[in-house]
Each structure stands twice: as structure tokens, then as C-alpha cells.
């Protein structure tokens, strides 16, 4: 529009110049043109003058900016914004409190949706959205299962809706340096099609060819930028050099560009070599199949195509594929195994509702503070009304003032949230793809702004409508005496009761939820900082040989001077434990028919000795337990207390509950011993570690002080035993990251902080509203005293109302807390542990104290005022 206007003016003026030049044409063409221009004057200036002459005049006194124009579209004037900013500085206390409350409320309200959005991120490949993962859904468990090579080959042959399919499996590979030291690097076996599907070219050399997939062909590897830099010192002639991976020399055929990692954070790629006749290998799961949608093919078409293939496979191999339904899945979701996004995860909406509830509470309380300020400004509002401002205009002004506050708070909140998330991101960086961004995105900012507008609506418009109501305006305009004329009445009572309810319900509820997460855990102190932990892997070794290597490594480690013990297990104290559901072999087992969830760990025979953790009852594992049906299990004290209800566990039988579609039942296991519980591990069931286990094995070496000093020696010992042994992530056991502990920590601390904030908000709300209502009654108190009322009866009168509100709030709060706790505990009885009782008492005590203070101070002040003064003054 604006450009067209400029073009028109230009054309019009040039026409004029040409005509004038024609008029002078007898003086020669050049001279005529010069003369015309001379007469015309400064062309640009005239253009500018025409443009401004054609515009509508701006309102007097304003210099209209782009922001102002944007705001005016929504009926907001810059004057309102300036007033809003002025209000921020005029009431710094209120601003501080409100910004604090909303700076917490807005990011917390956003957090669940933000977390859900992260899994929607597209991978950073060319047209990354069209690169999809193909996965089988197990209809029985409603979980995705990893794919097999057999599925990859069948899908590749049958699907026409994909340009090509690729397959990968991540692992760790030891790159052995010239001095014999092995250091593991995350890498992946990939099909040669991978790089074409991702449309990524190498920085040097080539990517993998189908010929590289031939069994018996030369050993080749494509390395990532980081490996090239660190292992080959960024050698420009790296192509053709060899590196030893797990003892086998591999020729480097390509170097990928910086930043390219695939599929997670793997930085070297070996060709997939498969014997298509080896059925066991073909059916083994653990692979990730992906592909690029063919041009013009929609997701829906690809899914339909895949479903047809899936149904055919179900008919052909019913024993393995009857319950499997293949799905085309977004890359990031597929990588994380989050089906349908976080929104479909259990508890997501509860989390979202809770988060928004916190925002609503924050808004309600800030709203209450603003309410009192707005009432105090009735005079100013009356003047504005008298000068002709409409109700809508005044409401808009108050809304914009709240909006300025909310936008400021949202900005502060986002900055703080960004700082926190980026500092905590290191913790999960290892287990997330590089494009996974926890920080603030444009989307987050847009949502935060929307929430700010919503908040401003709640806390600005509601009080504004109340204060500008007809009754109040009549009062203000007509009488003009000191009191605002705003009677809180029912609204104030409702707000007070709501806040008391919240204060009373919050604390026990938060304690109950956190308590429910961690159950009752008794933990013995375990000196994790004395142990060196590491992951022990031999993915490319035969199971029988792996078992022998492991035993030899344990023997050598134990023989090292100063080493007090070695423990090997699928999990170590303080780490995440896989869990399963079990049932008890008891006649009176009335517990949940789905079974009780317990942690399940496989440990070596010397595990508890190695950890210096004595058997409390029964016996430990023996080598004899490795033969036969391996039915002996050991439980911890948390298992005895929480699952068995304190019964003697020795000789008792338990078994895992299989899902109904699974067919066979699991064998019974016999409890042969009891050990103390480690902190942060719930009910635990220990099995003996099968010697053939090669993948998920962790090592704990009891070194003593500074356990990390033993890392080089441990690596050297491992390389001596076999170069194929991969020792990864060596660190002191107390440094080990446990997602469960991490999340529990966050929820516990987050819960405590949020509870504190909620409590602070509620009690400040109670104080503000109660003291305000008493202040509003100052003149009434004065009149009563003037009429001869007893001071005690006045105190009682004021206290009665406050007490009724407090009592109502407490009753509702306790009822809600108990109700919610009952739901959370799955219908069971509310445990009467001391933390919960203490928390309830704390919530009640603080609320009552604040309530009494809120009434007493202003009442006493009112009583001290002389009746005549109260009547004369502003009240």
C-alpha cells in the first residue's frame, strides 16, 4: 500500500517534469530538462511533502510509533501504557510482589506445554520433517518396540511411499590409541542408505556405499568431525588412514561435517553387515528404522501403506507379529519412544492443570492486591469519569496497567526459566539429541505473552469492572466524600475463604504428593563417593567369551592393591532401576491384582560383599544359584516393609505378573535373603546376574578416597584382558546421574518452593483483604464508639466475621486435601505419618496466625482513633 503510494507520487511528479521540459524544448533537450528541474526544486523534498500532506494527521501531542499503531489496533493507547509504567514505579512494593508471583506463575503454567513441544522438534536435516521413524506398536502393552532387521528388510522391499529406508543401532566403540589405551566413542552401525536419506554430504571423502555392506569386505568407517579433530588431529589427509576400533583396524573413508551426529549423539558410523540367512540375527530387536517420505506422499498415505504391510506380516508370522501394528512416527518422538507426544503420557493433564492452577492462584492474589489499589484510586477514576471517560475506557486503562505488570513479570520469568533450564540441561545432554532445546523459543515467548494477557484479564478487568460499577460510580460522583463506596461484602468473603482453603490444602497436599512419589524409604548410608563406577560393555563379543572376560576383569581388579571390593550389576545404588510388577504366593494376598511395582536388579554373586553391604537375614548369592532355574532372589528392607507389610520374607515365593496377552506365566521365585535398603531405592528384588549378559552391566570398584584417580588403571586392566572391553562413563558413584533421582529431586524441591510461594501468596492475600475490610470499617467503628458501644463488643464483632471466614476456609481446605490425597493414594486409607500431620498443622497455624494478625492490627488502630476524628476523616 505504502509502496504503491510512493510509486504514484513519483510517476505524477515525473510527468510534470517531462511536460515542463517539453515546454522549454526549443532550448535543446538537455537544457530544457535542467531548466525544468531547476524550476521544480528538490524532487525528494516534494515527494516527502506530498506523502505527509496525504496522510491523516496524528492526534496532537503524540509521536506515533510502530508500537503505538499496533496497540491502537487493539484499542490501547500509549497514554495507558505510560500510566501503567508509572504505576509500576509508584507502588514498588506491590510491583515487586506481583512480578514475583507472576514470574513464577507464568513459566510454571507454561512448563508442561513447553516440555510437550520439545518432542515435536524437527531434526536438523534437509526437510527434516519428512524423515520419519517406523516403529511397531505392541497392542498388548501399548508401547513401541524396537525394530528388527527382518522388519527393516521386509518394509524396505514392500513400501513404495518412502524414497528409501535406513536402519541404525547405536553402540559404543573403543578407539584404541597407539599407546594401547582404549576410550569409548558413541557410534552406530548404519545402512549405506542412511546418508542419502538424511541428505547430508561428507566434509571429506565419501559416505558409505552399498558395497561396504558386503560381509568380508574391507573394514571401513565414516567418522564425525569431533573424532576427526580429537583422534586424527584434524588431519587434512585423513581419508585412507586407519584407526583401531575394538582392536580391528578400520580405514577412514569419510569425515562428516561439524555438528552432524546421528541418530542421537553418535559420532562414527560403521556399515551394517548382515547375514540374511541368520534368522536369530534377523529377528533380534534393538534397531531403529527410519526413512524419507517420497515426494508428494503425505504422512497419511505412508501410514496406510505401512499398515497394509503390517497386516500382511501379522498373517504370515502370527506368533511374533499378531499384536504388532507398525506406525510412521515423527523423528524426535520416535527417538525418545514417546508415543503420541507428551500429551498422551499418563498424568500430563494433571500436571498441566496443577501448573495452570498455580497461575490462577497467582493471578487471583495479585488481582486482590490490585483490587485494593484500584479501590484506593477511586477518586482518580471518578475524576476521569466526570471528565467524560466511558466505563470501557477506564476498564481498558486498568487492564493495560495490569498488562504492563504481567508482561514485565512474564519477561522476568522467562529469563529466569531460561537460565535455569540451560544450567540444568547439561544433566540430560548425554541422553538427548543435539537439536533438543530446553531453552526459551519463539513459541514459548508467544505463549508466555498470551498467558500474560490472560493474567492481566483476570487481575485487571475483574477488579476494574467491580470498581467502575454503576453503584460505586453514583456513590463517588454524587457524594464525593472520603470513602470509596466499594463494599467488598460477599466478594471479599469468597476471596478470603478461597485463600484460606488454598493455604490449608496446599501444604499437606504437596507433602502428600511428594511423599507418594518417594514412598516410605528407609535408606542406609552408603559411601557412594568411595566407589568408582563405570559401564562395562562387550557388544561385539560372544556371550561365553564375554562371561569369561568379565570374571577375569573382576579377578584382576580385586587383585589390585588398595581395592576393597568389586560389584557388578545391571544397576548400582543411586541409579535408575528397571521395575516390574510382582505378585505374592499368599492365600490372603488382597493387594492390587495388577501386582505391586518393584525394582528389579541383576547382580553378581559377590555384589553385596563388593559394596560392603551385609546380608541382614538369610543368605547372599552363591555360585550354585547360577545353575538350575535361578529362582533364588534377595529382597531389601523396603520390600519387606512396603510389599510384605513386615512379614518374614525368607522362604516366601513371589513371581512377576505377566500381561494377559502374554500367554505363559512367569515362574515362582524364592526369597533367600534380605539386605538393607540403599537410599533412593524403593522396594527392590535382586536376581543373580546371568553370565551371558553382555550389554547392561555396571561395575562398582571400592577404591576409597578420590576414586576417579583409578580410571586410567582400570582402563589399562580392561585393555589388557581384551581390547574389545568397553569401559564407558567412569565416574565416582555419587556423581552418577539418575533420571529418577533427578526428577524426584526436582519435584521435591520444586514442590517445596511452589508450596512456599503458594502459601506466601495465599496468606498475603488473606492479610490484604482482611485488613482492607477492617480499614474500610474504620468510620463505622468510630460511629459505634461515639454511640457508646463497648470496645470489646466491637473487637468481637470484627473477629466474628473473620473467624467465620477462617473456619469455612479451613473446613473446605481440609476436605479438599483429604479428598485429593485419597484419590492420589488410589482409594487407600490416608497414612497418618508425621510429615503430613505436621504439614497440615503448619498450614493451619500459619493461616490462623495471619488471619488474626490481619484483623487485630487495623482493629486496634481503629479503636485508638477518636470517634470524632474517624467521622471527620477519610476513613
Amino acid at each position, binding site marked *: 500500500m505504502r509502496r504503491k503510494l510512493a510509486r504514484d507520487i513519483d510517476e505524477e511528479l515525473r510527468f*510534470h517534469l517531462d511536460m515542463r521540459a517539453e515546454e522549454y524544448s526549443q532550448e535543446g533537450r538537455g537544457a530544457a530538462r535542467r531548466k525544468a528541474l531547476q*524550476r521544480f526544486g528538490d524532487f525528494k523534498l516534494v515527494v516527502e*511533502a506530498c506523502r505527509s500532506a496525504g496522510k491523516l494527521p496524528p492526534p496532537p501531542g503524540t509521536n506515533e510509533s510502530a508500537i503505538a499503531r499496533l496497540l491502537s489496533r487493539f484499542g490501547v493507547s500509549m497514554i495507558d501504557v505510560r500510566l501503567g509504567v508509572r504505576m509500576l514505579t509508584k507502588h514498588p512494593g506491590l510491583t515487586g510482589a506481583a512480578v514475583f508471583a507472576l514470574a513464577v506463575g507464568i513459566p510454571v503454567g507454561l512448563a508442561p506445554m513447553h516440555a510437550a513441544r520439545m518432542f515435536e522438534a524437527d531434526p536438523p536435516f534437509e526437510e527434516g520433517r519428512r524423515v520419519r521413524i517406523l516403529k511397531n506398536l505392541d497392542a498388548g502393552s501399548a508401547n513401541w518396540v524396537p525394530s528388527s532387521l527382518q522388519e527393516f528388510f521386509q518394509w524396505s522391499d514392500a513400501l513404495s511411499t518412502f524414497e528409501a529406508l535406513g536402519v541404525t543401532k547405536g553402540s559404543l566403540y573403543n578407539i584404541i590409541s597407539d599407546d594401547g589405551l582404549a576410550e569409548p566413542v558413541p557410534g552406530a552401525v548404519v545402512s549405506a542408505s542412511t546418508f542419502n536419506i538424511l541428505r547430508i554430504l561428507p566434509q571429506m571423502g565419501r559416505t558409505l556405499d552399498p558395497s561396504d555392506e558386503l560381509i568380508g569386505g574391507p573394514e571401513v568407517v565414516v567418522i564425525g568431525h569431533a573424532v576427526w579433530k580429537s583422534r586424527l588431529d584434524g588431519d587434512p589427509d585423513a581419508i585412507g588412514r586407519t584407526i583401531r576400533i575394538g582392536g580391528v583396524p578400520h580405514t577412514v573413508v569419510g569425515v562428516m561435517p561439524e555438528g552432524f551426529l546421528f541418530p542421537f549423539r553418535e559420532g562414527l558410523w560403521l556399515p551394517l553387515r548382515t547375514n540374511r540367512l541368520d534368522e536369530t540375527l534377523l529377528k533380534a530387536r534393538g534397531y531403529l528404522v527410519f526413512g524419507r517420505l517420497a515426494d508428494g506422499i503425505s504422512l497419511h498415505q505412508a501410514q496406510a501403506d505401512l499398515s497394509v504391510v503390517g497386516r500382511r506380516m501379522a498373517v504370515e508370522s502370527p506368533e511374533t507379529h499378531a499384536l504388532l501394528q507398525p506406525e510412521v512416527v515423527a523423528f524426535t518422538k520416535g527417538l525418545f519412544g514417546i508415543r503420541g507426544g507428551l500429551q498422551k503420557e499418563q498424568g500430563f493433564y494433571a500436571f498441566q492443570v496443577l501448573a495452570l492452577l498455580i497461575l490462577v492462584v497467582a493471578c487471583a492474589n495479585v488481582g486482590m492486591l490490585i483490587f485494593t489499589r484500584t479501590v484506593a484510586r477511586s477518586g482518580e477514576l471518578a475524576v476521569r469519569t466526570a471528565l467524560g471517560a466511558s466505563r470501557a475506557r477506564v476498564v481498558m486503562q486498568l487492564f493495560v496497567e495490569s498488562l504492563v505488570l504481567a508482561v514485565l513479570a512474564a519477561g522476568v520469568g522467562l529469563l529466569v526459566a531460561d537460565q535455569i533450564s540451560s544450567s540444568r540441561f547439561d544433566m540430560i545432554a548425554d541422553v538427548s539429541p543435539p537439536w533438543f532445546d530446553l531453552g526459551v523459543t519463539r513459541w514459548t515467548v508467544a505463549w508466555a505473552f498470551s498467558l500474560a494477557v490472560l493474567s492481566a484479564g483476570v487481575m485487571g478487568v475483574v477488579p476494574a469492572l467491580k470498581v467502575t460499577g454503576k453503584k460505586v460510580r453514583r456513590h463517588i460522583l454524587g457524594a464525593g466524600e472520603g470513602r470509596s463506596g466499594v463494599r467488598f461484602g460477599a466478594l471479599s468473603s469468597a476471596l478470603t475463604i478461597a485463600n484460606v482453603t488454598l493455604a490449608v490444602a496446599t501444604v499437606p497436599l504437596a507433602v502428600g504428593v511428594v511423599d507418594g512419589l518417594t514412598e516410605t524409604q528407609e535408606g542406609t548410608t552408603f559411601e557412594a563417593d568411595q566407589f568408582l563406577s563405570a559401564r562395562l560393555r562387550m557388544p561385539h563379543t560372544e556371550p561365553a567369551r564375554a562371561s569369561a572376560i568379565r570374571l577375569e576383569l573382576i579377578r584382576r581388579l580385586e587383585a589390585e592393591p588398595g581395592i576393597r571390593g568389586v560389584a557388578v550389576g545391571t544397576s548400582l545404588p543411586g541409579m535408575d532401576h528397571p521395575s516390574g510388577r510382582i505378585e505374592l504366593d499368599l492365600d490372603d494376598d488382597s493387594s492390587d491384582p495388577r501386582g505391586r511395582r518393584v525394582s528389579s536388579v541383576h547382580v553378581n554373586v559377590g555384589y553385596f560383599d563388593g559394596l560392603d553391604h551385609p546380608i541382614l537375614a538369610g543368605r547372599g548369592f552363591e555360585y550354585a544359584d547360577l545353575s538350575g532355574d535361578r529362582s533364588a532372589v534377595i529382597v531389601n528392607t523396603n520390600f519387606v516393609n512396603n510389599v510384605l507389610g513386615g512379614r518374614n520374607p525368607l522362604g516366601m515365593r513371589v513371581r512377576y505378573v505377566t500381561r494377559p496377552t502374554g500367554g505363559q506365566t512367569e515362574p515362582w521365585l524364592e526369597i533367600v535373603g534380605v539386605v538393607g535398603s540403599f537410599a533412593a531405592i524403593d522396594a527392590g528384588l535382586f536376581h543373580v546376574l546371568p553370565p551371558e549378559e553382555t550389554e547392561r552391566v555396571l561395575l562398582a570398584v571400592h577404591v576409597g578416597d578420590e576414586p576417579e584417580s583409578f580410571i586410567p588403571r582400570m582402563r589399562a586392566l580392561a585393555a589388557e584382558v581384551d581390547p574389545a572391553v568397553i569401559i564407558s562413563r567412569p565416574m565416582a558413584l555419587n556423581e552418577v546421574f539418575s533420571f529418577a533421582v533427578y526428577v524426584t529431586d526436582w519435584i521435591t524441591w520444586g514442590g517445596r518452593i511452589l508450596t512456599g510461594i503458594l502459601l506466601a501468596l495465599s496468606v498475603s492475600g488473606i492479610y490484604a483483604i482482611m485488613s482492607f475490610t477492617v480499614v474500610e470499617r474504620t468510620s463505622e467503628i468510630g460511629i459505634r464508639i461515639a454511640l457508646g458501644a463497648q470496645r470489646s463488643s466491637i473487637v468481637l464483632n470484627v473477629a466474628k466475621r473473620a473467624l467465620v471466614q477462617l473456619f469455612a476456609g479451613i473446613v473446605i481446605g481440609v476436605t479438599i486435601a483429604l479428598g485429593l490425597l485419597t484419590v492420589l493414594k488410589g482409594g487407600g486409607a490416608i497414612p497418618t505419618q508425621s510429615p503430613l500431620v505436621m504439614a497440615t498443622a503448619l498450614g493451619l497455624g500459619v493461616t490462623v496466625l495471619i488471619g488474626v494478625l490481619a484483623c487485630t492490627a487495623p482493629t486496634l488502630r481503629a479503636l485508638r482513633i477518636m470517634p470524632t476524628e474517624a467521622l471527620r476523616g477519610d476513613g
Partner: protein
Amino acid sequence: MPREKTALLQGTLDMLILKALDREAKHGYSVARTIEQATDDVLSVDEGSLYPALHRMERKKWIESSWGLSENNRRAKFYEVTNMGRKQLSVETSEWTRYSHAIEQMLHTP
């Protein structure tokens, strides 16, 4: 020898433009030429003022514009007076007549 040109009196440009456009639609150059020719080149229209004035008057809805073809078949912007413009012209003309008559009377006072 060309006649000496006189600059327009402040506040008269709008009136002259309206008068120039009174009979027919004209483009900017034609407006300028009409004023010059009607006054035997005594009044010279400053082009730097003419076009901003045309745009301002269009905004005030005294005149309206449309693109058309000029006498030499070029695209040109033509202006014509609206009813509001005619009223404005008659107001300004009577004021000017009154004003110039008063000045004349004063100057011819013996």
C-alpha cells in the same frame, strides 16, 4: 522581454487550484499552466507547493483524483473538484473579493 513574475500570496493557492479545476478535470501540470496563462504569466505557481497542496486538498475531500491519459497519451493523475470543494471555492472567493475590495478601497482613499 518576459513579464516579471509574482509569487502567490499566502493562502491563495488552494483557491486558485479549485478555480483552475472548476470547469474540468486537470492534471497537476495543467493546473499550473492554467493559473499561469489565466494571469498572463504574472502569477507563478511554485511546483514544490502545488503538489503537496493537491494531496492535502484531496485528503480534505475538496478534490478527488483518478489516473487517465494526458493529451500526449501518457498516464497522468487527473484531479476534479468535489461538491465540498465547490462550496469551499465559493467561500474563499467571497472572502477574497471582500478582502481585495477592502484593500482597493483603502488604496484609493484620497
